[in-house]
């Protein structure tokens, strides 16, 4: 199974590339919020892109807004969802 740290790195790189963030992957904190105060400052369009990218790159389906709210909180929550999906597969 893929190492968790490796997975975090892949997600951060994906975010920088897909969302055209003005920072590098190492600058993104594992627990840093994606949205809201003190966050990366992502918006709803970024969320849409993340949902598509998570499916494309990691096979993670985000089926509805409730799931999106839970999964798209931080890098760590995305990692947890991907790991959970792999265990259940």
């Amino acid at each position: 199974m893929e190492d968790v740290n490796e997975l975090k790195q892949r997600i951060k790189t994906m975010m920088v590339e897909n969302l055209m963030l003005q920072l590098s992957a190492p600058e993104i904190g594992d627990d840093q919020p994606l949205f809201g105060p003190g966050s990366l400052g992502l918006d709803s369009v970024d969320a849409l892109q993340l949902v598509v990218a998570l499916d494309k790159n990691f096979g993670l389906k985000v089926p509805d807004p409730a799931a999106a709210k839970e999964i798209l909180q931080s890098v760590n929550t995305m990692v947890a969802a991907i790991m959970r999906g792999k265990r259940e597969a």
Partner: protein
Amino acid sequence: MSARIILITGANGGLGQAIARAFLDENPDNFVWLGVRANRQHADELVAKFPKRCRCIVLEVTQPDAWRSAVSQIMAADNSLDVLVNNAGRHQDALMPNMSWAAWKEVLQTNLDSVFHGCQAVLPAMIAQRHGRIINIASLSALLAPAGQTNYAAAKAGVVALTQSLAKEVARIGITVNAICPGYIQTEALTGMSEEERKGVLGRIPMRRFGTPAEVAVAVRFLACAEASYITGSVLKVDGGIF
């Protein structure tokens, strides 16, 4: 010009046929999916003429499931969908006091709901690709709102607004969304017009002639081309100068 995968709805009609031919002419490697319903004779003829370059796909544009199925089929076959042309439409004209609710709903579903379903169906693929071109065929009726077309004018004005709003949502992802408003074009839509009506309409067109489907098709092809990458949320009239 690199080869592209194109989906056109309403591909059996005169305008749909012209748009398909414009893309077939553009690049010998373009592949065109012809969205059709029960009437598909002209689309089938085009497939017979270009069997390796286009294919019919049954698509009831008012049904989201049909869209999902069609896009899945295209992605399975081509692994890409570069251009969507939402061209399917119809009108049922009547003055408001005489317009049935069924006529209102049917025209809204066919002209506006279909565009919503189509855009929603192709966006995941286009977002994943990080490029795409969506061209929505609206109508001059969206801008002029003629009497007798409350349903059609409202639906097409909705298409224009949807186009502009969606364009803002996906601009940063490399997807452009534009609308074309054809005026009076020589298609089956004009066949119900009497000679007197035709003369009256021609008198209101500064160019004093009806447009051809090919003249609309080149505008579609332009908005879909790679060089039109900075044009999004635009509404292009193709109408011989009516305003």
